[in-house]
């Protein structure tokens, strides 16, 4: 299959001009565009794409970027406790705020398009270079050529932002292609937590998103993104952390919406003594697909990484987890762990879990585990031991299953929203059964 030659060089030039970008960004976009034209689509021979049927994405008909129709963001989170907020709707920066003390300390929290104008030097070295390279595949090239909006966060050396920053990215009617980018840059010894909500999109939309988290030496970064896109949306997401020496990163990805959520989540541990936690949770609606490809890449010695992905899989849904732990020859004393837990909620639910260990060092500790449970066994246990009605027991089992991840989410507003969404799905599940 050849992909859509529906996009044109002219669109790249116009987009870049509209955003008022520095020339180097336009040049990079054009270079990516030229490579994109000839890059092959991922094939089903490729392990990471083996389970993905690209045909229903309608790539051949794609040739335009999502534009807004003037709607306002529908669903906003309670911002209480956030030290800063950025709201993007249909790609436009709708509002932003940042506590004055952080701004005075040199923290930048704004849209990526703004940052390109106000702080081009910060974006230049980090954007799609080491973390998620533009040329990684056909979709990252498309993103590099035509990304149209994003979130940017920079925390200078030694500065600590104690309370989380909140970014909301929403779509109104959606349609066509939407390519949002997030760039979080924590300089040496800096500390920050960024939480993102992605939601909306009514029409058939292809979202190709990239999140890059760069934690320099000794930095501590937490990045969380939870998506609840509309049912006609398909997302291909690349979310990766680049972890420097003695840095500590916690990434969490939550998947609630979209008929297809294909997510490449990973951490590259590139300096001695780095640590990364990778968490993921999912509870798709009936008939949706969640396809997580995770990567724990240990390039330096004495690093640790822990991964926990878990989710509930309703009737007719399919969940794929492919988790790679890769240890380079120099990465001695690596300690890497990976777990994937699935809870099947119907006979027709499907979950595949594949660990992949690629280990080239000898003094390492690497392990993986996967569990596949169905509601009934655990439910019985509760029913027997507490005499609870079936529906209550079910609710408790599912809520309890998600609790370890939920309790780690930053901001009460985000936690409440996710808890509500999970409760709604549990109810629907019970409706489907009775």
């Amino acid at each position, binding site marked *: 299959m050849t992909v859509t030659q529906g996009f044109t060089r002219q669109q790249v030039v116009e987009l870049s001009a509209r955003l008022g970008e520095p020339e180097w960004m336009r040049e990079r976009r054009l270079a990516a565009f030229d490579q994109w034209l000839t890059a092959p689509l991922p094939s089903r021979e490729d392990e990471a794409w083996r389970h993905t*049927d690209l045909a229903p994405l309608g790539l051949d008909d794609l040739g335009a970027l999502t534009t807004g129709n003037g709607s306002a963001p529908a669903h906003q989170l309670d911002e209480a406790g956030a030290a800063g907020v950025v709201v993007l709707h249909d790609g436009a920066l709708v509002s932003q705020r940042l506590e004055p003390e952080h701004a005075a300390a040199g923290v930048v929290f704004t849209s990526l398009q703004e940052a390109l104008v106000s702080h081009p030097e910060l974006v230049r070295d980090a954007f799609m270079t080491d973390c998620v390279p533009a040329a990684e595949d056909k979709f990252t090239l498309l993103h590099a050529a035509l990304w149209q909006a994003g979130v940017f966060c920079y925390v200078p050396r030694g500065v600590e932002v104690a309370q989380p920053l909140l970014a909301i990215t929403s779509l109104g009617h959606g349609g066509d292609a939407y390519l949002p980018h997030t760039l979080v840059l924590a300089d040496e010894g800096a500390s920050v937590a960024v939480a993102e909500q992605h939601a909306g999109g009514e029409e058939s939309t292809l979202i190709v998103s990239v999140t890059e988290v760069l934690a320099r030496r000794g930095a501590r970064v937490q990045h969380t993104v939870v998506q609840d896109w509309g049912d006609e949306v398909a997302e291909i997401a690349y979310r990766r952390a680049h972890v420097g020496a003695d840095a500590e990163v916690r990434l969490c990805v939550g998947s609630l919406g979209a008929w297809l959520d294909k997510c490449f989540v990973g951490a590259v541990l590139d300096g001695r003594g780095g640590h990364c936690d990778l968490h993921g949770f999912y509870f798709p609606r009936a008939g949706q697909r969640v396809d997580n490809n995770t990567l724990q890449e240990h390039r330096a010695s004495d690093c640790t990484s822990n991964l926990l992905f878990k989710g509930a899989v309703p009737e007719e849904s399919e969940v794929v987890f492919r988790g790679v732990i890769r240890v380079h020859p120099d990465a001695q004393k690596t300690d890497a762990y990976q777990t994937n837990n699935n809870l099947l909620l119907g006979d027709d639910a499907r979950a595949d879990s594949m660990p992949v260990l690629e280990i080239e060092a000898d003094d390492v500790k690497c392990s993986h585990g996967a569990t596949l449970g169905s509601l009934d066994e655990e439910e019985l246990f509760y029913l027997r031991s507490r005499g609870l009605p079936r529906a209550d027991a079910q609710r408790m089992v599912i809520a309890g299953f998600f609790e370890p991840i939920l309790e780690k989410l930053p901001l009460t507003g985000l936690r409440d929203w996710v808890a509500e969404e999970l409760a709604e799905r549990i109810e629907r599940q019970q409706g489907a059964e009775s």
Partner: protein
Amino acid sequence: MTQFKRVASLADIPPGTMLKVYLGHRAVAIYNVDGELFATTDNCTHETASLSEGTLNGHEVTCPKHNARFDVRTGKALCFPAVVGLKRYSVRVEDDDVFIGPPA
């Protein structure tokens, strides 16, 4: 016919052949067995493979990947390595139009 969707014309699926169509975002395989049509999910239940790219022999479809066989009339898995059956869909033909409906 509210739940049925036109997905192909009969001429696209001569007897003894199969066709992959999409119902929303799901791939469905339609089989023509001596003039009678059947439909199941297109994805093999063993790993991942498109059954309509395999071979159809009478009412048995063979997966192109590891040769699991399924009965297209019932969806049943007939041999290793598949153990789980295929979901079936209802099919209707009106004149030259083929419609797929809810799971059967």
